[in-house]
Each structure stands twice: as C-alpha cells, then as structure tokens.
C-alpha cells in the first residue's frame, strides 16, 4: 500500500477512466458476497427445510454451506472476475491484457492482472494471515500458563487451537509462492508476464475470502478438530466445522491455480538463453512446489468436499458405523498433508540458496545437487504419508516401507545442507540481515529435520506421536524454516519491490529477538512432549507447569519480536521511506539488474540470458543477461525452427 503513496496521479485524471467507486473492486466484491450469502442461505433453507438435519450435531448445515458457496461466487463476481467471460459469451471483444502498472493505490484493491501487483497483494494478505494466526498462538500460550483452564473454556480453547492451526497452514502454503513467487518468478526467468494472469489474480482473490470464511467459524462456536479435521469428530461438530472445510478447500483451489500458472510460466516463458541449467534455485523451488500443489492439493479439496457432504446431505463416507471409513479421511488428508509440508519447506530452500550465494560472494556449490535435492524431496513426499498413521490401527504390513521412505527423504534434504555448507567453504561472508536469517534457517531446519528422523522410527514414534514433540518438530521446520526464509526474503527483496529499504537497526533487533525467542519457545516443547504432554490439551501434569510457563513467556517475547518487525515494516514503508534504488547487495541475478521497483512489463525487450546468476568471483564473468538485445536477434535465433518465444514481443 505504501508503494505508490507518493504518486499524485489519480486514475481518471488523464485517461478518462471511470472513478474507482464505480469500477469493480473490493467494495463491490463485499457487496456481492453479502448478496450471495443471503441468496445461498435462503436457497439452502428452501432445499433442506424439514429433512436435512445433521443428526450427529443436530444442526442443519445446508443453508450455511450454500451461503458460503454463493458468497464466494458473489465476491468474485463483484470483483469483476467473470467480466471477461461474459464479454466472450456475448461476443464482445476482450480488452487487451496489460501488464503495465496502473497508477494510484486502487489497483491493489482490484482484480489486477499484473503479476507484480498480485505479488504485493499477496505480501500484505499473507502478513495479515500470519499476524492473525499469531494472535491465536498468543491466546493458546496464555491458556497454557496454568494446568487447568482459567482464561478460556474448553470449547473456546479448541476453537482457538483450530483457528491458529488452520490459518497458519493456509497461509504458509502461499507465503512465499504468493508474494515472491508471483513477483519474482517471471522476472527471474526473463519474462514480461505470467502465463495465466487471470488465474493468478483469481488465486490471490480467493485468499481473502478463505480468510473471512475461516474466521466466520467463530460466529458458530468454532470447530473442535484442530487443523486436521479428523472424522467422525468433524461430523459431530457444530456448524463452525463448515467454515473449516469450506475455507480450507477454497484455499486449496487457490493453491492449485497458483501452481498451474507457475508451472506453465516456467516452462514456456523463459527468456532465450535461460536454460534449465541456468534457472535460479528460487525458480526451481517454485517449479517443484507448484507440481506438488497441483498433484496433492486436489486430494484435500476432495476430502473437504466429502466432509461437507457428510455434514450436509448425510452421506456417510467417513462414518465407520454406516459403511464409510474414518481411515479414508485420514489417508486422504495426509496424502495431501505430507506433500504439503514440503510445499512449505521447499520455497525456504529456494530463497536461502539465493541469499547464501550472494552474501558468501561465491557460486552456489553443487547447483545440480541442489536441483536434484528439491526434485527428490518433491517426488518422495508422495510416498510417506502413512507415517502420520503409525498408531492409527491401519494394517501394519506397510510400516517398514513407510519408515524407509520417510528416512530416505532425509537424503535429498541433506543435499540442501551440502549445498549451503559447500557455499560457505572459504567464502567471504557478509552478515547482512537476509544472511542472518539464512544462517538461522540452517540452524532451525537442522533441529527440525533431525527430530523428524526420530519420528520416522516406529518404536520411537510410538512415544512421540501426537505429543508436543511432534508440535515442536513441525514448528521448527515451518516457523523456524519457512518463516525465517520468508523474513530473509522480505529484507532481501523488499527494496527491489518497493524501492524502499527497511530500517537496518530495527531489522537486526528483530532478527536477534526472533531467533533467540523462537528457540527458547520451541526447544522445551520437545522435552514436554517426551515427558508425556499430548497436543491440543490445556490440562497437563502439574510437574510440567514450570516448563510450560517458560515456554509461554518466551512465546510472548517472540510475539514482541514480530511486533518489532511490524513496526519496522509500517514505519519504513509509510514514514521513513529510506530509498534504496540500486543494487545494494551487489547481486548478479536478473531482478537486481532492473530498476527498483522494476518498470512496467519488467523488461523493455525480452532479455537474452548469457550466464548463470551465481558466477561470483569468476574473472571476466559475463553479465547475467543482455537487457537490450538488438532488435531482430531473437527472431533470428528462432528463424527456421518454426517456433518463437511464447508471449514475447521481440
């Protein structure tokens, strides 16, 4: 939002555009959503009155689910998502898709088809998600200050736990692919645009809807299942459960759309010379993650859909008593759920690889190993999901196999460490803030990864499964890994995205408080889990109180650290506005060769890529790209092949 605050130009001044309030935007979207919800609710009442009572929860969920569905459609229609579709149906010509930034702030509140605008939208959206989820975490830790309930009743506690977990999981899957993937993916491959700008923008505009829908569960008393939504507890739950299924499913659709767009963009829109062997690691990570999303998330959407069917129209897909299977839900959920955790881990690997190379002033060690590591993790992640179900009562024949695959996945994960460590060998290390976060990433992810090996071993897992040990493990990999990488990305790329840099001193305070308090918060949780504290309980053994109090106080300090980041972010963006227009990190990669922020359409001409972006310390290294190739060069290169670089204007 801070991006164009200095710009005095207003839409409509010169171009004759209509003023913002009569054009589709957030306000018309909200109106559409309200109308849609009312219509859906009425329709649901009409369809289901009298017969479709959910017998387990004694509630009628059809009006709510239909209300949600039409509210989402109304929101999208109000935003103008379907306008081009209607134009096509009516046979009217489509307006030209431009990737030029408009002027003013209004473009950030609209269905804008510019990947750089979408990236900024994602950045603010995901920070909003993260802060909301973080507040829920603070509430959880407040409740855990004592071993019996004092702040919240059991129902409120589970509501907060569920909202925290689900909100964070929905956010984490888009927190890097959203802001940085959409913004820098096309730039890093030398493209002026993404393949499917409409899908991309739609992917973003589903996330605010999912956010509101998930929170709307609170109005119905929340959902008691945590972020996993296990059946048949979910069928027994009150109407807040619909919010979980609908919002999570909706976020799933957003992830699929973002994934498709990224895959096609990376395959088809690379500039001439951008061979696969020159692809920046960050793009490799986005590419792999997109495949994981496209292949695994549909299973989640299906599971959420089936869960909603169980709740509304009384199918019994997940009810053991009626011929369904609660194991089916567990399998579907974790078939998505395990690739999901690598959807969270891989973008971190990508950002960290970029940052480490720049601040070590060295080429990335073992480029092919790094790419192979990502692909290996991605492929293996589809074959490990039953390690979440070692104690579940599923037939145990496959347990040795799933133990093996789970442990195998630490080989490609180890590649990432090899690449990092090799790059540090005889380097010239600069401790900029992104580099500090990268180092912290290795530290946290090491602990997270090693604790994962403990969980893969069936006998050890029998003690650790479902306890605070698991909780500590995945907070180390997700918060300690992904969020630290995200922060590295923010400090590294924000000057490029906005032309403004964050305050250095506050940034360092933010890093050190976050690193220290993250570890003092989550390291003791391993011990708590091993001492027998299950997840998602507020009644725990008296002798664990001291340790829990320590964790809670650390968690509040961690919250303060995030607050410092927020203050830095808001003050730097809105008030201090310290410009940073050059190449402050002296980075080679393509995005840093452009102005800050990059010009409309990124490049005047499609660049010709001459070298990889990691050639630090190489004498007479070629620049990474020729940004102004003479006209006709690219056409000449493609002459006679019958092909041309798609979507590029030569």
């Amino acid at each position: 939002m801070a991006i164009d605050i200095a710009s005095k130009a207003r839409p409509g001044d010169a171009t004759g555009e209509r003023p913002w309030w009569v054009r589709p935007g957030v306000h018309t979207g909200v109106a559409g959503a309200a109308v849609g919800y009312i219509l859906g609710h009425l329709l649901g009442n009409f369809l289901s009155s009298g017969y479709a009572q959910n017998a387990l929860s004694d509630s009628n969920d059809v009006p709510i689910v239909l209300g949600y569905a039409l509210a989402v459609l109304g929101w999208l229609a109000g935003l103008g998502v379907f306008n081009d579709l209607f134009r096509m149906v009516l046979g009217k010509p489509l307006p030209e898709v431009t990737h030029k930034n408009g002027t003013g702030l209004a473009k950030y509140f609209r269905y804008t088809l510019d990947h750089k605008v979408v990236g900024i939208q994602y950045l603010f959206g995901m920070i909003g998600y993260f802060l909301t989820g973080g507040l829920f975490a603070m509430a959880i830790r407040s409740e855990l200050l004592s071993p019996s309930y004092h702040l919240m009743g059991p129902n409120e506690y589970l509501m907060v736990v569920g909202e925290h977990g689900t909100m964070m999981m929905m956010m984490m899957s888009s927190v890097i692919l959203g802001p940085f993937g959409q913004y820098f993916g096309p730039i890093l491959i030398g493209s002026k645009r993404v393949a499917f700008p409409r899908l991309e923008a739609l992917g973003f505009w589903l996330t605010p809807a999912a956010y509101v829908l998930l929170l709307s569960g609170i109005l119905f008393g929340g959902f008691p299942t945590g972020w996993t939504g296990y059946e048949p507890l979910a069928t027994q739950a009150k109407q807040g459960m619909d919010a979980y299924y609908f919002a999570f499913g909706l976020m799933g659709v957003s992830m699929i759309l973002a994934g498709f767009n990224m895959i096609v963009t990376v395959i088809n829109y690379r500039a001439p010379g951008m061979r696969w062997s020159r692809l920046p690691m960050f793009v490799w990570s986005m590419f792999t993650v997109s495949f994981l999303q496209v292949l695994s998330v549909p299973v989640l959407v299906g599971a959420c859909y089936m869960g909603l069917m169980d709740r509304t129209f009384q199918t019994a897909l997940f009810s053991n008593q009626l011929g369904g299977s609660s194991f089916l839900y567990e399998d579907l959920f974790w078939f998505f759920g395990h690739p999901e955790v690598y959807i969270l881990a891989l973008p971190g690997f990508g950002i960290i690889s970029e940052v480490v190379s720049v601040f070590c002033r060295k080429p990335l060690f073992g480029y092919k190993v790094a790419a192979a590591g990502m692909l290996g993790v991605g492929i293996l992640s589809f074959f490990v999901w039953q390690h979440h179900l070692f104690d579940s009562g599923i037939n145990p024949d496959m347990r040795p196999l799933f133990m093996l695959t789970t442990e195998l996945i630490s080989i490609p994960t180890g590649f990432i460490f090899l690449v990092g460590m090799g790059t540090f060998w005889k380097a010239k290390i600069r401790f900029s803030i992104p580099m500090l976060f990268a180092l912290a990433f290795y530290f946290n992810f090491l602990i997270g990864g090693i604790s994962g090996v403990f969980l893969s071993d069936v006998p050890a897992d029998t003690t650790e499964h479902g306890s605070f040990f698991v909780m500590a493990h995945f907070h180390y990999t997700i918060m300690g890994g992904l969020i630290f990488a995200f922060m590295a990305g923010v400090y590294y790329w924000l000057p490029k995205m906005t032309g403004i840099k964050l305050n250095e001193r506050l940034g360092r305070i933010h890093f050190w408080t976050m690193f220290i308090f993250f570890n003092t918060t989550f390291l003791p949780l391993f011990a708590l889990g091993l001492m027998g504290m299950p997840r998602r309980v507020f009644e725990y053994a008296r002798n664990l109180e001291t340790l829990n109090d320590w964790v809670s106080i650390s968690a509040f300090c961690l919250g303060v650290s995030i607050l410092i980041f927020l203050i830095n972010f808001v003050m730097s963006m809105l008030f201090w506005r310290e410009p940073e227009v050059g190449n402050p990190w002296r980075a080679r990669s393509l995005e840093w060769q452009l102005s800050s922020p990059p010009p409309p359409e990124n490049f005047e001409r499609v660049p010709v890529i001459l070298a990889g972006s990691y050639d630090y310390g190489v004498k007479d290294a070629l620049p990474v790209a020729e940004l102004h190739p003479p006209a006709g060069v690219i056409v000449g290169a493609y002459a006679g092949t019958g092909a041309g670089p798609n979507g590029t204007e030569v």
Partner: protein
Amino acid sequence: MREPRHGLRLLAIWFVLALVADLLIWFAWYPHLPPGDMSESAKHQQFDIAVLAVMAAPVVIAVLLYFGYAIVVWRAKPDDDGDGEPIYGNTKVQLIWIAGTSLIVLSLAVFGTVELIGPAGAGAGEGPSPVWKLAGTQTASWTPGGNDMLQVQVIGQQWDWTYRYPQFGGMESSTLYLPLDTPVTFHVTSLDVIHSFWAYQLGVKADANPQVDNVAYTTAKQLGGFTVRCNELCGIWHGAMYNYGKVVSQTDFQTWAAGVQDKEQADGLIADLPAYALTYDPTVLSELTSSNNINKVDGITGAAGYYYPPSDPVTP
C-alpha cells in the same frame, strides 16, 4: 600466511565433540530417557530414542560446528569487498556426502524395522489383524504362573476410558490393572469418535476407532502406577480424558480381578452388560439394554456406566 588445513581441523574438533556427546548420551542420558523401562515396549522405545540420539548428535555437531567455524574463519574483513573463490562443486565431496547420508539412513531403516518386528509392533496399535504377534498362551480364563496371554479391551468414549477383561467374565473396570511379567493384548476400540490410548509409562499407543479393533501388545516389567491419556483430539474434554493404571504381582492381580468379577456378578452387572465383542455399535447396544438398569448401577459399568442414547452423538 599459509592456508591452514581447514578440513583436518574440523574433523579433529568434530571427532572429540561427537565422541563426548555420544558417550554422555549413552551412559548419562539413556537411563533417564522417556518413556522409561516399565514394560518391554517402553524399553524398546527408550532404546530406539537413545540409539537415534547417538546417531543424530554427531550429525548435528558436524553441521553446527561447520557453520560456526565458517562464520569465524571466513567472514569478510571490514575493508574487503572482494568475492570468494569460484568453486562450483566438488565431485568427491558430493559423492562422499551422498554415500554417507545414504548409509546412515539405510542403516536406520534396517534398525527401525528390526526394532519394530522383534518386540511385536513395539507397543504401537497394529489394527484388527496384527502381523507381529506377542508369544503367549491363548486361554479362555487367565491363571497366574504360566505364560497365559491376558486380554484387555480398552473402550474409549467421550471422555472416558473403560477396561474390560474377557477372561474374567467380561467384567469392567475404570482402572487398568495389569499383572507383572505377563504378555498382554490390548484390544482398543471406541464408541464414538477417534481417541488414542496412550499408556505413557508402558509405551503403548493405539488409536481407538469406532467399529475397529486395534490390537497392541506389551509386557509389564515393573510394579507401580502409570498414566493413561487420550492422545487424539476427541472433542472439548479431550485433555481431561485420562485415568490411571497399576501393575501388580500376578497373584494380586488374580485376587483383584476375581473379586471385581464376583462383585459385578452379584450386582447383576455382568448379566446386564452386552456380550463381550471386539467392537460395539452403541445404537444396537442401547436397544439390547433398554429394558434394564445398565446406566444406573454403581456408576461404573457399561463403559464407565453410560452408553449414549442413540442420537447423541453417535449415529442417526
């Protein structure tokens, strides 16, 4: 100044640190590692955690040591804005790394499999048809002294645990008594949603699924009390779903169990309870028992004295 041999230095420091850490883990920490050694399965879990810690410590130390060394030795001097040496990779290092990690990982997988199969599933729930069975004589009535397998059914419901002993007339108890040195088969099931039976000190964990008989094995090796908690989120009072168990000598167990059986027989409770089965459908059960006082006597029978009425909250 001659470039020092970093690799050798690192290796020497690492070796000393890793050796010290492993010795400390094995000799000082191992006896205190959870879940203790109260039963066969707990012992194996403790052993596995110790072995994994011994494997993990050198790896963690290696990585942290390396990064710490790099930060100290290879940080750029304040006035130096040059680049590092352009090293794009090193085939030997990469091959050693891949071979090393593969070796560790594969040996861990073999180790885990042996530790899973040897102790009959290592206390984890094996589902209705267990593959790795614990040795013991299957008998209709349990007697001390031999190697009779004790059958215990664990029934979870929101939010309580009930234990049923088929070899003692199908009597029920809300405290889990177990005899020492006796192979035990747990049949874990649920009446409503998914719970998880976690006898922490015994090292047993098995999900309680409705309509599913989930089997787990253990053999208690020490006298004393233990805790049972629910380990799978099952609704608002999930955290309060715990009770206690006790390991007693075989003769004490025989006396206790026979005593409870006699009392419940005399009270007419056993006759009122549904026949012992591996799973129960509460809908059907309440029809079977609608004419008698199953919910009311002593407050302890019929899975903690209470089966749900048909529509709340189990099935339509």
